């Protein structure tokens, strides 16, 4: 009888998984391993550690997706997704990174052919271990034909990841309850990499994707939480490399991209415009937003330093369908992606790989971490 009750209980619990997954403040990410992972091949050799951050836009390249560009497309075709994911894997292999921080990676989402992109990249690069934290997971999004969705942040590494944690970021407050229920739940993902311990200090990788479209103070809350998480590692004597898509421009940058991001029939910056600014294209929604990243630059070592962060060669993003004229795509026009460490980057190693502009609407930023001496 007990067995029947147990089986019935398990059946009821499994059959009643949430339709939309919500997360506690702290939870365990999904851990993955490459099919051909080799612990022997990748023993840390005490040399420099290459780190990359890249928002890969769920492997759809410059596809005119309705949600983040002027496009109206929703479901990418399988062949394009596979070709683009293969190109992303090649690009990661070419960068020869030890740690890759990815944003907007899809797992079994309808829009990208139900491919597990984290597993795909692990199986098609020399990276062996992965940790994934979803920011949008639902059985079904009943809007625009999106359907099943699971997308989020991932840390990929040559070396084994342990103590991984998904840290929930505050939800937007400028949405109705219904929209918020089906909306993104952004997060920070943190993992320890024991093989990279530096002089007895624990080594962490931390990845964030902050809000893009909030018009309230959500972005400030996200960056503050990020600073808090990094501060805790630092205070605990740990070493970290961190980065992600902060959806924030550097201090001193242009803050209003509404005109360049505007789509046909959009109406912004006019008397009757409501909202006045385009969501995600304006970077002064609250007091102090343009200087939101100053504490990070003041406290930690940045891969792209203050002297360079507003130079065009370090721009990392432009909306995928943004055009200069009828035939010329805007490849990049702002910097949103960053790398920091509480250790030291190899001087001059910070780089933005703008040649990858066709593979996503963001470009990878990379730098080489210098090992801490004894």
């Amino acid at each position, binding site marked *: 009888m007990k067995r029947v009750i147990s089986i019935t209980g398990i059946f009821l619990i499994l059959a009643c998984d949430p339709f939309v997954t919500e997360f506690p403040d702290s939870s365990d990410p999904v851990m993955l391993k490459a099919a051909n992972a080799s612990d022997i091949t990748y023993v840390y050799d005490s040399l420099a550690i290459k780190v990359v951050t890249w928002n890969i836009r769920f492997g759809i390249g410059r596809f005119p997706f309705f949600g983040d560009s002027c496009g*109206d*497309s*929703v479901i990418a075709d*399988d062949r394009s997704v596979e070709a683009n994911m293969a190109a992303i894997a090649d690009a990661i292999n070419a960068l020869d990174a030890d740690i890759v921080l990815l944003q907007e990676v899809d797992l079994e989402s309808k829009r990208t052919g139900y491919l597990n992109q984290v597993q795909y990249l692990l199986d098609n690069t020399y990276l062996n271990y992965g940790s994934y934290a979803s920011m949008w997971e639902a059985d079904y999004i009943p*809007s*625009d*034909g999106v*359907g099943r969705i699971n997308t989020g942040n991932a840390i990929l590494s040559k070396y084994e990841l342990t103590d991984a944690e998904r840290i929930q970021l505050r939800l937007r407050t400028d949405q109705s309850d219904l929209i918020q229920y089906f909306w993104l739940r952004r997060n920070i993902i943190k993992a320890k990499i024991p093989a990279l311990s530096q002089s007895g200090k624990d080594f962490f990788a931390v990845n964030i994707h902050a809000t893009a479209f909030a018009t309230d103070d959500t972005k400030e809350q996200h960056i503050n939480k990020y600073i808090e998480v990094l501060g805790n590692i630092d205070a605990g004597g740990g070493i970290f490399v961190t980065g992600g898509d902060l959806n924030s421009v550097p201090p001193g940058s242009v803050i209003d991209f509404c005109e360049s991001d505007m789509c046909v029939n959009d109406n912004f910056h006019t008397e009757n415009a409501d909202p006045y600014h385009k969501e995600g294209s304006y970077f002064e929604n609250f007091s102090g937003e343009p200087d939101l990243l100053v504490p990070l630059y003041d406290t930690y070592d940045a891969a792209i330093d203050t002297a360079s962060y507003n130079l065009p060669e370090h721009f990392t993003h432009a909306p995928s369908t943004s055009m200069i004229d009828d035939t010329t795509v805007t490849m990049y026009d702002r910097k949103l992606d960053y790398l920091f460490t509480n250790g030291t980057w190899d001087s001059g190693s910070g780089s933005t790989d703008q040649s990858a502009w066709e593979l996503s609407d963001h470009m990878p930023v990379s730098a080489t971490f210098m090992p801490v001496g004894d």
Partner: protein
Amino acid sequence: MKKIILLCVFNGLLLAETKSWDSHSAYLLPQKRWEVGLFQPFRFGYSETIEYSTFPLWFFVMPNASIKRIESDMAGFNTASRFKLVYPTPLLNMLARAKTGGMIDPNFQMPPMLGLSASWLMSKTIFPFVSPYSLIGLDLTLTGGLDLGITLGDLDPRSNIDLPLVYHRLGIFYNKWGIHTGLDVQKNLTEKIRVLVDLDLRLLPGLADIQINPDLAKLMGDYSLEHKLLLIWNKSDRFRIMTGYKFVKGTYPYGSDMRLLPYIPMMEKWVPIIELQWAGKRAK
């Protein structure tokens, strides 16, 4: 003995009428009797050998009709054949829309699609002991059949709706054909209350082969197992209430999944099925 015979006759008369509620059995509605439910089709006993049914609320966006016909008894079973026809194109094109309510990418135009289904139904009362309508007996129905999905134009596989109950029913249009089989068991708990347990299997053989790139989606969802348990209170021969649950397990393009229904997303909880049904008889 006289009391037992009288009880059996009374019982038989009462439940003979309720037996005609069984839409999934090989039994037909009596001639001129009609039935309709919140979620069940409108059914009409056209003659002693033919019954028609349709989902009236859906009819204008998804024209549908079915006919059930009595066949010769087989191996002690009452036997019937059922033929269904459905034209889901208008409804699917309504669901292919931008913004809230869009279940299908609005870039897809659904072509004319015609679903045909042929079923063979066999029903029998087993373990009757005292009478065919006693409280002890079980009503058993076996079903099996073939589904065909005819599409007049290109149907993009990405236009699927990967939800339980829906995915495998629409799957016949992507796969061109499917098989269904099922088992229904009903039992009287009291004179007014019955319990229904059913198990249905839907197969879409070879569905994985139609995937353009099999490397990306090895599981295309080629089966669905549905189970339902209902408690049915026959208030009279004109009204009844049902409550229970439906359980669905199957494979989908993203893998295997199971779900207890009905499920309310924003409440994140299962709620019982509530179904009301009415019946009547058209004057001859």
